C-alpha cells in the first residue's frame, strides 16, 4: 500500500459520486481528464492503462474518449464492465456538453452527473457569468439528503448530509447562529492528522461559545467527520463550488478557514471575493503572508530581517539572482505545501539542473531563490487577538536550517537559546502578528545564526505543532483562537498574554517516515517534507525524552557495534568531532573511501569500506548504525540511495544529518545505562513539582 489517505464522496449515482470524489482529491483534475494523459500517444496510453498506477482511472477515461472499446479495456484492466460503462457515460456526457447548446435541461443533467461549473463552462464554451445567471434564474442548486442508515424506512433525524441535484431537500436548517469550519481533506505528507485535531477543537469551541457548529470535510478516516462531532456534518468535496453551496444553504455568521491546513486557507480568496465573512485573520492578511513582495515590504516596515531573496522566471534570472545573493541558495516554486520541490543548492551546475529539470518555470510560475542561512531553526506558534498575543511555548529544531520543519526533531522548551534571543522572538512575533492583523492562530519560523534572527516563513493559520504545544503546555490554543474570533480579548482570559512560563518537562517530537512502504523513495532529510507522522518523547529529563522519542519512532538503539560513515566533503571537518564522540561511546568506525582518508589523516582509527561492500556488511549484520550525508539525492541510481534503502530494509538506524546523529548519542547513553525510566501520564508531567 502506498496511499497516505483517502477521500470519500456520497451521491445518488456512481457517476456523480466518482466525480465528486475526484474533485475532493485536490489534484490537477476536477473531471476525468488530466492534460498529461491527454497528450499521450495511443501506445503510451495503452501502457499507462496497463501499468495500473494511481492515474489509471484518467487513462481509462481517455481510452474511452479515443474509442477504445469497453471489451478491450476490460481485457487489460479486468475492471468490471459495469464500472467501465459508467465511466463511458461520463465521457459521453462530456461530448454532449461540447456538441450541444447548454440548455437548462442539459445544465441540470450535467450538475446531477457531478460536473463542476468550471468544467461545464469549459466544455460548453460559455463564460462563468452566463452559467451563474442560468443557475440563479432557474434555481439550479443542489439539495441535501440525510444519511439516516435506513434509506428513509423509519423516521430518523441525523445531522449528517450530502448534496445531490434532485427535487426533495431533506435538510433541516436551524435559525440558530452558526459557524462553519472547513476541514483539511485527505491525509497527505505535509498536511496530516494535526489539522483534524484543530478542526475538531474548533468545533468544540464554537459549541461552547453558543453557536451551532457546522463542518465540511471529505475524509472518512477522521474524527471531524464523525457524526457526533459537530452539530451538523456536510460530507462534501472541499472544492469551492461545493463549499459555496453549503454556505448558501446555511447562511452562517462566518466561516473559519484557519484550522483546515492549506486546503482551507486556499479557499479564502474566493470566499472573500464572493462576499463570505471569514472569521479570524482576513484574506488580505493571508495574502500578505503568502505573497513574497508584500511580505518583504511588511517586514521592512517593522524592521525585521528575512533572508534576502528574489523571484525569477527563467534560468538566466535564476543564475544572476544566485550570483547576487551568494551560494548556497534555497530554491522552490511559489505557493506550495510542505516544501514541495524545495532544495538547497550549492553551485551553478546544480541550480541549472534544478531549473531545467525539477520544476516548471514560466512567467506565471516563478521560482523563489533565497539566500540560505545556516543556523538554528525556531518555531513559534501564537494566538493573537489583533492587539495582544499568547505564546504557549517555543520549539527549537535539532537539525539546522535546510531540513523541513516537519521532518526535523523538534524540542520543547528550547535548549540552546539565550533569554535575550527569546525576548526578541516574543517581540518579533507580536509585531508580525499585530501588523498582519492576525485574529486566531499564527505560526512563524525563524532562523538564528548566532548573531541575528531572520524570519523564514509566516503561516497565518494552525500549524503542525499546535496539538503538541496545546498538550505539553496545557494551553487550549484552538479554543483561545475561536474566542479571539468572536471578539474576546486574550488579556481577559486565564492564560493572559506573552510567553507562557516553561513547563517543567521536555518534549521531543521525532518524525516517522513510511520508508518500508515507499520502497523507491529516498528518505534523506532535506527542505522537502517526506515524513508521514510523528511521535513525542516526554520526560522530566532531556536525555530520557530524546530516548523515548527515538524508541517511540521505532528505532532500535544499539549500545555498541560498528558505525558506517559516508559524509559529503563539506561535512568532514564538523563530522570529525562527532565521530570522536561515537568512538568515545565505544563504537568502531567503518568509513567510505573519501571519508576514511580524511579520518585517517586526522588520526582516527577506522576501516575503509566502499559503499558497495557496506551493503554486504549490512546484510551480514556487521553494521549497527549509519551516518550518511548525501551529496546529491533524488536519484535512485546513486550508491548512497542504495545504502539508505538497504538500511531501511534491515531496520538499521540511518541518519542523513550530523545534527540527528549527534543527538542520537544521548539515546544510546540512556539505552546503555537504562535505569529509572519512568512512564507517566501527561498530567503528572505537567503538574510535576
Amino acid at each position, binding site marked *: 500500500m502506498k496511499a497516505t489517505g483517502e477521500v470519500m464522496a456520497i451521491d445518488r449515482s456512481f457517476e456523480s459520486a466518482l466525480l465528486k470524489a475526484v474533485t475532493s482529491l485536490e489534484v490537477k483534475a476536477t473531471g476525468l481528464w488530466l492534460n498529461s494523459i491527454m497528450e499521450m500517444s495511443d501506445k503510451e496510453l495503452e501502457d499507462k492503462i496497463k501499468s*495500473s498506477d494511481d492515474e489509471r482511472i484518467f487513462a481509462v477515461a481517455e481510452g474511452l474518449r479515443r474509442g477504445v472499446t469497453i471489451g478491450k479495456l476490460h481485457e487489460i484492466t479486468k475492471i468490471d464492465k459495469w464500472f467501465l460503462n459508467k465511466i463511458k457515460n461520463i465521457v459521453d456526457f462530456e461530448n454532449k456538453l461540447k456538441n450541444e447548446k447548454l440548455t437548462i435541461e442539459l445544465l441540470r443533467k450535467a450538475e446531477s452527473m457531478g460536473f463542476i461549473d468550471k468544467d461545464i463552462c469549459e466544455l460548453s464554451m460559455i463564460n462563468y457569468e452566463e452559467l451563474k445567471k442560468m443557475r440563479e434564474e432557474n434555481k439550479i442548486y443542489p439539495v441535501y439528503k440525510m444519511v439516516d442508515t*435506513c434509506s428513509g424506512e423509519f423516521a430518523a*433525524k*441525523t445531522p449528517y448530509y450530502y448534496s445531490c441535484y434532485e427535487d426533495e431537500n431533506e435538510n433541516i436548517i436551524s435559525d440558530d447562529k452558526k459557524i462553519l469550519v472547513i476541514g483539511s481533506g485527505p491525509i497527505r505528507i505535509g498536511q496530516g492528522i*494535526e489539522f483534524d485535531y484543530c478542526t475538531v477543537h474548533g468545533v468544540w469551541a464554537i459549541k461552547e461559545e453558543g453557536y451551532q457548529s457546522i463542518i465540511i470535510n471529505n475524509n472518512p478516516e477522521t474524527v471531524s467527520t464523525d457524526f457526533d462531532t459537530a452539530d451538523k456534518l456536510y460530507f462534501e468535496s472541499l472544492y469551492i463550488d461545493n463549499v459555496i453551496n453549503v454556505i448558501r444553504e446555511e447562511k452562517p455568521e462566518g466561516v473559519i478557514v484557519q484550522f483546515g491546513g492549506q486546503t482551507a486557507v486556499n479557499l479564502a480568496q474566493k470566499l472573500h471575493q464572493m462576499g463570505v465573512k471569514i472569521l479570524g485573520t482576513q484574506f488580505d492578511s493571508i495574502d500578505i503572508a503568502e505573497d513574497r513582495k508584500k511580505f518583504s515590504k511588511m517586514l521592512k516596515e517593522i524592521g525585521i530581517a528575512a533572508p534576502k531573496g528574489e523571484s525569477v522566471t527563467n534560468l538566466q534570472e535564476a543564475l544572476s539572482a544566485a550570483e547576487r545573493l551568494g551560494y548556497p541558495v534555497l530554491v522552490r516554486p511559489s505557493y506550495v505545501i510542505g516544501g514541495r520541490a524545495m532544495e538547497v543548492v550549492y553551485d551553478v551546475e546544480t541550480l541549472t539542473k534544478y531549473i531545467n529539470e525539477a520544476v516548471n518555470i514560466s512567467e506565471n510560475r516563478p521560482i523563489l531563490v533565497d539566500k540560505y542561512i545556516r543556523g538554528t531553526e525556531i518555531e513559534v506558534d501564537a494566538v493573537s487577538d489583533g492587539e495582544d498575543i499568547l505564546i504557549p511555548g517555543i520549539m527549537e529544531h535539532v537539525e539546522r536550517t535546510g531540513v523541513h520543519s516537519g521532518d526535523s526533531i523538534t524540542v520543547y522548551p528550547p535548549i540552546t537559546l539565550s533569554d535575550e534571543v527569546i525576548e526578541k522572538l516574543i517581540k518579533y512575533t507580536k509585531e508580525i502578528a499585530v501588523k498582519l492583523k492576525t485574529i486566531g492562530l499564527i505560526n512563524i519560523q525563524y532562523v538564528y545564526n548566532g548573531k541575528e534572527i531572520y524570519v523564514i516563513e509566516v503561516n497565518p493559520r494552525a500549524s503542525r505543532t499546535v496539538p*503538541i504545544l496545546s498538550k505539553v503546555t496545557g494551553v487550549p490554543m484552538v479554543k483561545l483562537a475561536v474566542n479571539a474570533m468572536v471578539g474576546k480579548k486574550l488579556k481577559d482570559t486565564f492564560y493572559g498574554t506573552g510567553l507562557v512560563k516553561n513547563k517543567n518537562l521536555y518534549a521531543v517530537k521525532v518524525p516517522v517516515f513510511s520508508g518500508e512502504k515507499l520502497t523507491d*523513495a529516498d528518505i534523506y532529510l532535506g527542505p522537502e*517534507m517526506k515524513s508521514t507522522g510523528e511521535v513525542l518523547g516526554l520526560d522530566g529529563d532531556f536525555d530520557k525524552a530524546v530516548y523515548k522519542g527515538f524508541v*517511540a519512532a521505532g528505532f532500535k538503539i544499539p549500545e555498541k557495534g560498528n558505525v558506517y560513515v559516508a559524509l559529503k566533503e563539506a561535512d568532514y571537518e564538523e563530522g570529525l568531532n562527532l565521530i570522536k564522540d561515537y568512538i568515545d561511546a565505544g563504537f568502531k568506525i567503518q568509513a567510505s573511501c573519501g571519508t576514511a582518508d580524511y579520518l585517517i589523516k586526522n588520526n582516527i582509527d577506522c576501516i575503509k569500506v566502499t559503499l558497495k561492500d557496506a551493503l554486504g556488511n549490512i546484510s551480514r549484520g556487521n553494521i549497527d548504525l549509519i551516518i550518511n550525508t548525501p551529496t546529491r539525492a533524488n536519484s535512485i541510481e546513486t550508491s548512497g540511495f542504495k545504502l539508505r534503502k538497504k538500511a531501511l530494509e534491515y531496520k538499521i538506524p540511518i541518519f542523513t544529518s550530523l545534527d540527528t546523529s549527534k543527538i542520537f548519542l544521548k539515546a544510546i547513553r540512556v539505552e546503555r545505562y537504562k535505569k529509572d525510566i519512568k512512564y*507517566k501520564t501527561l498530567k503528572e508531567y505537567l503538574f510535576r513539582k
Partner: protein
Amino acid sequence: MGKNQDLKKVIIIGSGPIVIGQAAEFDYSGTQACKAIKEEGIETILVNSNPATIMTDENIADKVYIEPLNIETLEYIIKSEKPDGILAGFGGQTALNLAMRLKENGILDKYNVKLLGTGSETIKKAEDREEFKRLMLEIGEPVPASIIATSLKECYEFVEENGYPVIIRPAYTLGGTGGGIANNEEELKEICQRGLINSPIGQILLEQSVAGWKEIEYEVIRDKKDNCIVICNMENIDPVGIHTGDSIVVAPSQTLRDSEYQMLRKAAIKIIRSLEVEGGCNVQFALDPSSNNYVVIEVNPRVSRSSALASKAAGYPIAKIAAKIAIGYSLDELKNYVTQNSSACFEPSLDYVVVKIPKWPFDKFNRQIEPLELR
C-alpha cells in the same frame, strides 16, 4: 446481560505514529472507543505515542500516557495502573500485535488483566495463516492454495507444484509490508527473502494468485450472544491484484447479483461466528467474475481502515458499538446512535452510492518507479 460489572479500569492501546497503512482511521476508532467506555463510568487509560491525535487529548480518556508503544512501557503502566482489562482492537495492527505479545509473555495473566473484545485465541486464528486456513477448510470456506514458508526452499517447492504467479505476504506486518507478486524465479527469490526479514516472526505466506477476480469486502459485527449483522459491503473497482488501500472502492457493491451478495454475506457471517469475534471484523473475498467461485482472502478481527470507511458510508459507528460489545453489551441491548430510536441490531441500508479514492504521495516521490503495490 449488559455491561461487565467487574470492569472499573481499562487500558486502551493506540496505533502510534501515522504511517502508510495506519493513518487517521485509528484516531477515529480509538477516540470513539474511549468515549464509549468512559460514558459507562469505567476509568479509561489511553497509551499512544502520537501527539497529533484527538484521542490523546485530556478530555477523551481519563488518563493519557504519551509514551512509546512497546512491551516495556505497557508492562510498566499495567503494573502501576492495575487495570481490569485491556482493549487492543482499536489501534490497528500495532495495538493487536502488542496485546498478543503481552499475552504470550504472560504479562496479562501476571497482572490479572483481561483482553477485552475479541480474544487472543481468535486473533491468533485470524492472523496466523496456517491456523486460519485450517479453520476455513474445517467450516468449508474456500481459500487459495497456500503454504507458510520459513525458508526459500519451501517457496521453490510450492511453485513447482502450483505454478506462477504467486503472492507473497509476510506474517504480522502492517498492511502487507514487504509482500508482492512473483511471476518468475528471480522475483520469487527477491520478494521471499525480503518478506522473511520483514516478518517479526520470520514467516511468509505463499499463495496462488486470484488476480483479476472481483474484490469484495464485508464489515461485520458480532456479539457474544452470537448476534451478527453486516454493516456494509464494499466493492473494489480495481480487481484483486491491487491493495484495497490503493483501490478505488464503492459501497455498497454494484456489480453483484443478489445470489452472489447473499452467498458472500452468508460466508462472512459464518466466518465471524466460527472465529468467535466479539466486535468488528472485516472479511475480504475474491469472487471469480465468470463463475460462482470465491475464496476468502483475509480477515481482520479488529476495526480497520475499511471499517472507518464503512462507518461513514453507512452512518453506523462501528468502533463505538464494538467497544460497547467489548465491555459486555450485546447488540440487542444497544441503540442506533444515529437514528436514536432504532436498535443497533438493525442492519443499515443505503439509498445512495459511496466512492472512496486513495490519496497518494506521488507529488513528492517519482511516479515512474512507484507502481501500486500488488498483493
